[in-house]
């Protein structure tokens, strides 16, 4: 089974460049604006979209993404509406891979089987669920793979060679390497250390490896794109969105453009990268 993610990474490999992966929070600051942002991302140069599922207690996220989730929840965002957003996005775009990223509880409460069926129908390609390590694969990972969705695992600086095979065993689509031990939006990653880590993971898998956490600028996105198969940027986009809001936290005429412009600049950075030899 080939998903949009597999197709996209095969195309990028052929084109000899790394992927630019963007993260935004579903429903931030409201459903309509959020849909317009997601629609604008591919046009601005995003190769893969990660869409955050809002959650009250995001224990691996820094203040920016915590606040983004709370803005969305305050305006009535739910997992059901997140899937509606994906369905609306798919009306105009049937090629850009879209991955939902979040925490397990909203999915568990929605019902795993129903969620997987609805997500597949809506046009979701993969899942990144922060609080489901391989030790809990039976919860969602195995059912997701059976339902035809990619389950993208996080590997971290604490995932040693002994543990990597277990982490990679049921991973599909791509591997998300978390460049620092820490939360989203924290200190910048060192490109050389990232290069070593990517080389280490590549000894265990043929999957593309995208790197995130701590990448904020076109320069940093380029440096990482030279060492990996993709650069992921989240907090910087969420911050650009937040800075465009009015004093009450509502979207303004500038909001969609603020995210699109930064996306375009970051995409230029990634596209300027010299791809490392495979």
């Amino acid at each position, binding site marked *: 089974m080939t998903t949009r993610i597999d197709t996209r990474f095969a195309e990028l490999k052929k084109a000899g460049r790394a992927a630019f992966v963007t993260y935004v929070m579903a429903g931030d600051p409201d459903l309509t604006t959020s849909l317009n942002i997601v629609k604008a991302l591919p046009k601005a140069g995003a190769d893969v979209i990660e869409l955050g599922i*809002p*959650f*009250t*207690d*995001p*224990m*691996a996220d*820094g*203040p920016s993404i*915590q606040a983004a989730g709370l803005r969305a*929840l305050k305006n009535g965002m*739910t*997992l*059901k509406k997140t899937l509606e957003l994906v369905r609306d996005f798919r009306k105009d775009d049937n090629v850009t891979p879209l991955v939902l990223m979040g*925490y*397990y*509880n*909203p*999915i*568990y*409460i*929605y019902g795993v089987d129903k969620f997987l069926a609805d997500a597949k129908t809506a046009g979701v390609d993969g899942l990144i669920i*922060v*609080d*489901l*390590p391989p*030790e*809990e694969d039976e919860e969602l990972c195995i059912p997701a793979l059976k339902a035809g969705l990619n389950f993208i*695992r*996080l*590997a*971290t*600086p*604490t*995932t*040693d060679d002994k*543990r990597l095979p277990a*982490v990679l065993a049921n991973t599909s689509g791509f591997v998300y390497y*978390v460049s620092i*031990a*820490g*939360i989203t939006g*924290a200190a910048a990653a060192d490109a050389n250390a990232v290069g070593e880590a990517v080389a280490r993971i590549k000894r265990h898998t043929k999957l593309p490896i995208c790197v995130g956490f701590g990448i904020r600028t076109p320069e940093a996105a380029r440096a990482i794109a030279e060492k990996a198969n993709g650069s992921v940027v989240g907090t910087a986009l969420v911050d650009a969105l937040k800075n465009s809001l009015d004093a009450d936290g509502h979207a303004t005429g500038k909001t969609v453009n603020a995210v699109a412009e930064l996306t375009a600049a970051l995409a230029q950075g990634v596209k300027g990268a010299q791809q490392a030899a495979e």
Partner: protein
Amino acid sequence: MNVVKPNSYRSGPDERGHFGIFGGRFVAETLMPLILDLEKAYTEAKADPAFQAEMNGYLKNYVGRPSPLYFAERLTEHLGGAKIYLKREELNHTGSHKVNNVLGQIMLARRMGKKRIIAETGAGQHGVATATLCARFGLECIVYMGAVDVERQQPNVIRMEMLGATVVPVQSGTRTLKDAMNEALRDWVTNVHNTFYCIGTVAGPHPYPTLVRDFQSIIGNETKVQMQEIEGRLPDSLVACIGGGSNAMGLFHPFLDDSTVEIFGVEAAGHGLTQLHAASIAGGRPGVLHGNRTYLLMDADGQIQDAHSISAGLDYPGIGPEHSWLHEIGRVNYLSATDDEALAAFQLLSKLEGIIPALEPAHAIAKVMELAPKRTKDHLMVVNLSGRGDKDVPQVGDILRGKSK
């Protein structure tokens, strides 16, 4: 409920940390290797007689154990039913049962070579116990505490700072215990290489619910021996308050297979179960938060709801996973007491026995006031007096003065 009764209620969890469907290891990958290390270190420590011997020394001479099992004569007379015994955990060094667990975890941290200790705290009792043992063993101590709790539990904040700890007021979310735990987890993910997370209750990812339970089981084990010495038999019932549920699990666990012993856990019903409260079993359902599956307060979308209790130590929208399991299989009866009931019990125990309880065990006393009169005079009821009320005196004083106006 259609659940098969196990041969023993004390054999859990399984090797993956599950009590029935509850428990587990729902954490970010960054933490997984450390959690596996902790499990290994704990298994080794348990098998090491030197570890137990060293701990016993500190429990006796530093904590002041065993804590007395005290016959509450005037409370018994007043209620006119069951013979009520108080397990005096409030007499421990630092003023609550929390120190039993912290001592065990700090000794584990030392075995694992970790020099930086983080903790979350609600009422501040776990924070004070952690700050105390970090001072004793020369370890760096950072305590995360919701900003709301920092306000209402000032005496404990001052104590922690005097003991050399850094208290970080948490401004995110509802600014109470659940947010303190989120922030502690964020710290842990960031500083995983040198940091030991000293969790204060029987919750979190496996192996925490098990190791905290084991360290707290000294409460029930002592009670069993003491009751045998005083009355020559087992107690007939046990009562304890529950936030996360560590004092309750410590008292209950050694008695779970004694089928004649009735067991009651008391959750915080806040303003009442139809309003703001912190009773996860009475008002919640199973979900996944803070590393484990357990009963949680949440909305239809799986978003965690705000808990409310007059007691900062019970103000948490979840409960330890083993309690969720004991509820589902029906071994423990879970009740709840409101803020007002707890306040009444707080005053009653103070006036009748000269013991000012913490607001947390005042919830247990509140249910003793209902349960004891319905039982015969030869019924032996043990209530865990898990903490002393010094920390609550300013808050309760304000409330009572406000009410008497």
